[in-house]
């Protein structure tokens, strides 16, 4: 009886509701409330408090949604957002300051003489009312990290968490309403209908984290309103493993980036490995013993591995593993528990390059190893495998290989001799290219992503180059040519124009 009443009372979030939310936030934004430094500071401090006082609840929600180990929840979801808040609180003053634009650069003095005397600066202003659509795999991190950026830039915000992590979504809705300014920051829960309703409205910026299919829908909706977007997508992030390296450390770092990142369900998880035929055996052996040290003899019993998010993805991953020419290539792992939605760390060797597992982003605990004759051939393999990935990794001690890697591989970000850690370095922009996305954030890049950089030119009344104005005589043309080309004589004559106005 009670449940029925609840169902009836729960309002449907439709186009009208979306319009109301957008209007309410716009009205709030127009009052200038979110622009004030104080408001931004209070919101960020409130978020810190929110994370601090609710860590157990957040960990519990993530355990419900993903069986995420406490360590991962604490570190990658709570601590990283905490860091972003603290960085913003520390640097925001600095980020908000206008940036002086150099007008009189000695190397281009001739350029600026046409606009002298003047001064110029670039002023950051909030875009307005922004929409953040987040993903299910790091429900707190990819919801709140963009929100931190949007707050620090002075915007009003709607956050739409993923319905595929329902416990996290509803906890986010509750916490944001309890701790943050609900007249300016709102959470809208729901699935496709609610997201579509939101996408019909006009936003000043949309930041979407997720997959390429939905990203196209988001960008097409944004096009109707000329809304700029940041799309944080994914791809098949390759790991090239050279020989003559510290194999143990390399293996551990790959394991950490793969199975200790939500059991491979992370946009920057190593997707597949490329190594030489000669080195493959050593590598496979290393991968046969190291995981046990991390997850125990029976990984399905380990508390340190996330489960697969839902049965759809479980089935998808099973299909990848069970494909005819692929299932025989499993050299380690492969254990599954459908009821608990668990798949153990699984290594495959030399799957066919045209198999499903090599065509789409795996986003799970399966790690194929592809072998090539020479390690340099791995670059061709990466480039032929479709879209540019979000990340690419290389383990090597060879300087030349490092240089070639860095110069030729196109990906959102590259890491040499490690995996995934670049996310934690806030001085590096985090974003994709091509199929892996557009735009970037983290650190100051978050602030920039949600700001409009307004160019401001201050001119005085003195120094009006008569050359600018009609009557246009051939004489003026010559002078203009001289001025724009920087000839001294021409410049002097142009400056004399000050007295001829």
């Amino acid at each position, binding site marked *: 009886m009670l449940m029925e009443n609840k169902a009836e009372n729960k309002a449907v979030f439709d186009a009208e509701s979306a319009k109301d939310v957008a209007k309410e936030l716009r009205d709030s934004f127009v009052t200038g409330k979110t622009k004030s430094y104080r408001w931004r500071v209070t919101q960020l401090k409130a978020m810190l408090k929110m994370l601090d006082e609710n860590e157990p609840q957040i960990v519990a929600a993530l355990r419900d949604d993903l069986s995420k180990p406490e360590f991962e929840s604490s570190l990658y979801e709570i601590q990283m957002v905490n860091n972003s808040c603290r960085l913003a609180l520390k640097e925001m003053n600095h980020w908000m300051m206008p940036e002086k634009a150099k007008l009189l650069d000695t190397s281009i003095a001739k350029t600026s003489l046409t606009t002298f005397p003047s001064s110029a600066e670039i002023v950051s202003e909030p875009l307005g009312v922004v929409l953040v659509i987040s993903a299910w795999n790091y429900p707190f991190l990819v919801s709140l990290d963009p929100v931190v950026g949007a707050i620090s830039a002075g915007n009003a915000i709607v956050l739409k968490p993923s319905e595929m992590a329902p416990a996290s979504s509803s906890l986010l809705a509750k916490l944001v309403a309890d701790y943050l300014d609900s007249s300016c920051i709102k959470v809208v829960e729901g699935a496709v209908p609610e997201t579509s309703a939101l996408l019909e409205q006009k936003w000043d910026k949309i930041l979407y984290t997720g997959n390429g299919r939905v990203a196209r829908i988001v960008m097409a909706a944004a096009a109707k309103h000329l809304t700029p977007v940041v799309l944080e997508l994914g791809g098949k992030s390759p790991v090239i493993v050279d020989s003559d390296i510290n194999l143990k450390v390399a293996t551990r770092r790959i394991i950490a980036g793969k199975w*200790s990142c939500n059991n491979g369900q992370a946009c920057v998880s190593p997707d597949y490995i490329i190594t030489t035929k000669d080195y493959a055996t050593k590598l496979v052996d290393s991968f046969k013993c190291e995981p046990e040290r991390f997850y125990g003899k029976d990984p399905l019993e380990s508390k340190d591995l996330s489960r697969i998010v839902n049965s759809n993805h479980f089935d998808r991953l099973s299909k990848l593993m069970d494909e005819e020419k692929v299932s025989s290539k499993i050299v380690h792992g492969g254990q599954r528990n459908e009821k608990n939605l668990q798949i153990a760390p699984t290594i495959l060797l030399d799957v066919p390059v045209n198999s499903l597992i090599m065509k789409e982003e795996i986003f799970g605990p399966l790690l194929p190893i592809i072998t090539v004759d020479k390690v340099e051939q791995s670059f061709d393999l990466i480039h032929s495998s479709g879209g540019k990935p979000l990340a690419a990794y290389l383990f090597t001690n060879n300087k030349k290989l490092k240089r070639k890697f860095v110069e030729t591989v196109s990906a959102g970000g590259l890491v*040499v001799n490690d995996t995934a850690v670049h996310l934690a*370095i806030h001085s590096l922009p985090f974003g994709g290219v091509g199929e892996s996305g557009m735009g970037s954030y983290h650190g100051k890049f978050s602030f920039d992503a949600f700001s409009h*950089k307004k160019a401001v030119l201050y001119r005085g009344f003195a120094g*009006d180059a008569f050359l*600018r104005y009609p009557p246009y005589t051939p004489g003026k043309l010559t002078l203009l040519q001289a001025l724009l080309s920087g000839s001294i004589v021409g410049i002097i004559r142009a400056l004399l124009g000050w007295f001829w106005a």
Partner: protein
Amino acid sequence: MEKSIAELRETFKNGGTKSISWRKSQLKALLQLINQNEDSIFKALDQDLGKSPVESYRDEVGVLKKSVTYTLSCLEKWVAPKKAEVPLLFLPAKAEVMPQPLGVVLIFSSWNFPFTLALDPLIGAISAGNTVLLKPSDLAPACMSFLVETIPKYLDNKAIKVVAGGADIGVRLLQLKWDKIFFTGSPRVGRLVMAAAAKHLTPVTLELGGKCPAIVDTLFTTPSKAKVTAKRIVGGKWGPCTGQACIAIDYLLVEEKFASTMIELLKKTIKRFYGETIKSLKNISRIVNKHQFQRLVNLLKDPNVANSIVYGGSVDEEKLVIEPTILLDPPLHSEIMSEEIFGPLLPIITLKNIEESINFINSKSNPLVIYAFTEDETFKKRILSETSSGTVTFNDSMVQFLCDSLPFGGVGQSGFGRYHGKYSFDTFSHEKSILHRSFYPEIEPRYPPWTDFKLLFIKLAYEFDYFGLILLLLGFKRS
């Protein structure tokens, strides 16, 4: 056409556009193209738009020469990777951001500045190492033909191509996959471009337009300042292609009591610059074609609008000329006050108090530029913080276009993305993050099995609480 694009992709894949020497050679060739063909460029601009050589040099040829020269002098600096700071915890490590070309880019340009708006983005695309397909506007046919014929004579045909044609060619091009699309034009077409780009997740830069207002505060106490203001307003309205420019002043906002003085000053300046009557009109472009001419004439059809004309209003359909026209307080709901004018009609809106201009501007969508002629520092601050536009220029018009160190672009309905100077290079680049790590030392707490100790360790590490870490390691902190 698909073959051309395949060739562009092949050239890019083979690294043909990567080297700095290639980029420099192309830029130098472009400079040569402009230098050796100035007269033909002037001729084409005169044919399409009636631009005089001085206007053409000032707004197109000169701008481009400046842009290429500046790019050539800065290219090495821009291409170099930039170091990024690495927190102590991650050392030893090296972090940097390296710009990389996006790949095969498509540039759509507009008809009003057919050379600048085609070649300035091209300069950016080349400097960033991309291959390019340029689609100039067919509404400036002589300029388009010039580009189609001349570019292949100077630039690397395998990497830079120009395609002629109208909207149908544009539509076909948009079906294909590009690594970037750069579009200058109207918001209506901007939407179509972005929607098409969405299918391929292609990033876009949209340089659109809007109604660029000019606020005129009390400057009439000083006659010389008033004169300069009038010149800059006239120069900023009718100077660029007779008002057919995205950054031209669209309308004026002035206090009631100064309106008549303003109008008199403007009239004097207009007569001096452009002539007294439509028959003696000189030093000014014409309207690009019949369609635009008709559109502008229609703006004046409304009797309430026609009645507000205080100067000008004459048109010459044969020559596609409309004389500089000033209107005083046309009805605010009329089309001339709701659409971007893009022509030689200047409405003056009077206000009781100039501060009202802020609300007035905010009632319309974000323009590309807000011009404000004022010496009141408080008012300047208010304009900056209470309005939103691509750019704000105080006490002048148009010149912000020449500043290579200022980003040029819109916000809201006036577009997104930006270019000019280094921003052109950036807009056609992907900033790739790179982190170099060493195998040693190893931080054990990264790895499972997780323990409380490891958790506390990483927490402290993340907070860069190095002292706390030391305490923990020495056993003085309990997990």
